[in-house]
């Protein structure tokens, strides 16, 4: 399974980082309540 990718841009340095998210980072996002089930609009 392809791991989620994170794209980071720093406005001061102009540095751009694209890498796979770590398991801890992805789990932290899921734990924060952001899941596909949060699509709370009337979109179908």
């Amino acid at each position, binding site marked *: 399974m392809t791991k*989620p990718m994170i*794209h980071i*841009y720093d*406005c001061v340095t102009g540095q751009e980082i*694209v890498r796979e998210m770590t398991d801890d980072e*992805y789990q932290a996002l899921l734990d924060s309540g952001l899941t596909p089930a*949060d699509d709370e*609009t009337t979109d179908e």
Partner: protein
Amino acid sequence: MATPPTFTTGSVLTAAQMNAVGLWKIATTTFSASTLVEVNNCFSSDYDNYLVMTSFYGNGTGAVWLRVKTATAETGAVYDRNAVYWYANAWNAFDAANQTYLFLQNHVSTSTNKSAGSLTFYNPNKAEQTAVLSQFSDYTGQFMLANHRIETTTQYTGIQMFSGGYTITGSVSVYGYRL
């Protein structure tokens, strides 16, 4: 002397002219097939208010959320929302309080039908509540107008956008408003 924004070839711009520029592009970044997009150090003491413009599509139909952050981490900010959503030929109330994120926008999977948004952040880098006024055109037939209030008074320096379940491809730009 040329008056901005009308410049002539070879004209030398003075500090006074440049300091009179009202909206300054801080950064644009483009991303591809990303689950999480972070723009760091876009909010600072340089400006009080900011414009954030988004444009993207996904590899499926889904939603994207936004959170403010400091230099090192997302902060657990508290978000309130008063909004109306145009869907199925009707306005729908879309309010929510004490959220852990700011609902950004929906997207479809067509690169020629991108989801587009503009958000104005008021005082995100000050130790006071941040107001965010936004409008989003998700795609044909969906549109949202929203007032977001970030209750917490942390001095934020950046944003992160998170896609739930799908990856997103597009761009985000940040501009600073001079008072």
